[in-house]
């Protein structure tokens, strides 16, 4: 691996990300999958770094899942997105940041389509007006929320309580980064670092002390794919993709995985349990899996937040071995206590993969 070659590509694919004043839209599924992540994003940006991030309760789905499943036409998806932009305009913002990778891809695709076909934009403006009497400006800057954490990675590192380093050995942790397909594969120039060698997560890992692993199936899909997972007949196909990635990363002995997509961390996490059940195989050390995190969760850990406040008890793969490696303290008995120490009940533990 020639590191300078990657640096050259990274310098070719830098996008302009304004420092402040963003209109934030959430993902449809992330709050269920990894409930601490979006809250942590806003907390880091607003409270820790003192930036202006605004969200309101009126925004909806971007229509991305329905669009990619062919259940709504593109004009419908565009009108939904136009309404989101109208909410941003009404709130007085020009920079738009999406929490979801598919939304980010969807917004990018729609803005590019309007650039190429201005008559379509005119029609959507008419449709939006007819539907709900709203008008909109297009965002001046569009970002995915991982772009922002990437942008703030050094500020976060300065405030860090922990680094991605093995406390006992002093060695950097070996980190796999997994980028959602819709981040840059459709429009390579819109992602930090491009599509083939994205830097958005690698930059965070670098800044926070870890070592990035480049394994053969790095570019491969996590296996979610809306049409794969949601149709049960195709679900084995979804699992097979994840299995292929784990088989490929296994020799590198990764300590953890960081992702920037709503679906990827969920499937990379949960399928490890299914693979353990089906094949009797686990990929971490001593019968554990490889813990999978969102970038906000990792930022939260680095900044010293309590792992259970970050929602890490909702992961399938036990995160405790990693917390021990970094030296993050946690209370095992508080793992299944929610807000105000409310008991959220203990799940049944699987046999094939070690969990707490």
């Amino acid at each position, binding site marked *: 691996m020639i590191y300078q070659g990657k640096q050259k590509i990274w310098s070719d694919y830098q996008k302009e990300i304004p420092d402040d004043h963003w209109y934030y839209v959430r993902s449809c599924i992330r709050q269920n999958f990894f409930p601490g992540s979006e809250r942590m994003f806003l907390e880091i940006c607003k409270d820790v770094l003192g930036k202006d991030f605004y969200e309101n309760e009126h925004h909806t789905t971007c229509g991305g899942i329905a669009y990619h499943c062919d259940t709504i036409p593109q004009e419908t998806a565009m009108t939904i997105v136009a309404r989101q932009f109208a909410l941003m305009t009404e709130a007085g913002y020009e920079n738009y940041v999406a929490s979801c990778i598919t939304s980010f891809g969807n917004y990018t695709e729609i803005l590019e389509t309007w650039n190429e076909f201005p008559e379509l934009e005119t029609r959507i403006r008419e449709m939006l007006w007819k539907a709900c009497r709203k008008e909109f400006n297009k965002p001046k800057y569009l970002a995915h929320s991982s772009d922002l954490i990437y942008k703030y990675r050094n500020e976060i590192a300065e405030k860090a309580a922990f680094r991605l380093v093995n406390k006992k050995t002093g060695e950097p942790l070996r980190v796999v980064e997994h980028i959602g397909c819709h981040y840059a594969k459709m429009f390579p120039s819109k992602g930090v670092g491009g599509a083939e060698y994205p830097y958005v997560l690698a930059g965070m890992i670098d800044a926070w002390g870890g070592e990035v692993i480049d394994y053969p199936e790095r570019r491969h899909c996590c296996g979610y794919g809306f049409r794969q997972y949601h149709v*049960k*007949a195709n*679900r*084995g*196909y979804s*699992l*097979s993709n994840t*299995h*292929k990635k784990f088989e490929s990363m296994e020799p590198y002995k990764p300590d953890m995985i960081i992702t920037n997509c709503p679906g990827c961390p969920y499937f990379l996490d949960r399928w490890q349990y*299914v*693979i353990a*059940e*089906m*094949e009797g195989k686990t990929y971490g050390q001593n019968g554990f899996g490889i813990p999978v995190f969102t970038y906000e969760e990792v930022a939260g850990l680095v900044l010293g937040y309590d792992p259970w406040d970050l929602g890490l008890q909702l992961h399938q793969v036990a995160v405790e071995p990693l917390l021990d490696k970094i030296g993050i303290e946690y209370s095992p008995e508080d793992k299944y206590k929610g807000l105000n120490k409310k008991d959220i009940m203990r799940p049944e533990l699987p046999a094939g993969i070690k969990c707490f």
Partner: protein
Amino acid sequence: MSIFGFRISPSSAINLDKVDRTRFEELCRIEPDAMRCMACGSCSATCPAATFSGMSVRKVLLNLQRGKEEEAFRLMSNCMLCGKCTMVCPRGINTRHIILSICRIYEKEAGR
């Protein structure tokens, strides 16, 4: 074990790292022309068995090279040794002779 109702699909990809070339190389020593096929498809187009069975000398040679020997044998079982493929091959490959050599080499290996 839990019943999920779905499973890990086996990969359909050809993995060249795992192909055992011993027998194909032996074939090439006896039949150097086996490597000269350029996949024009003349043999399959003229083969009287092709339309009913899928027999194709080009596919037999390719399957052997890619380690898919069972598939090659399945195709070859439909060959009637009529020799039309030899007649049309633009590179003058003695396909009929190659088929007989394949039978000899691979049967010897399989102990048949």
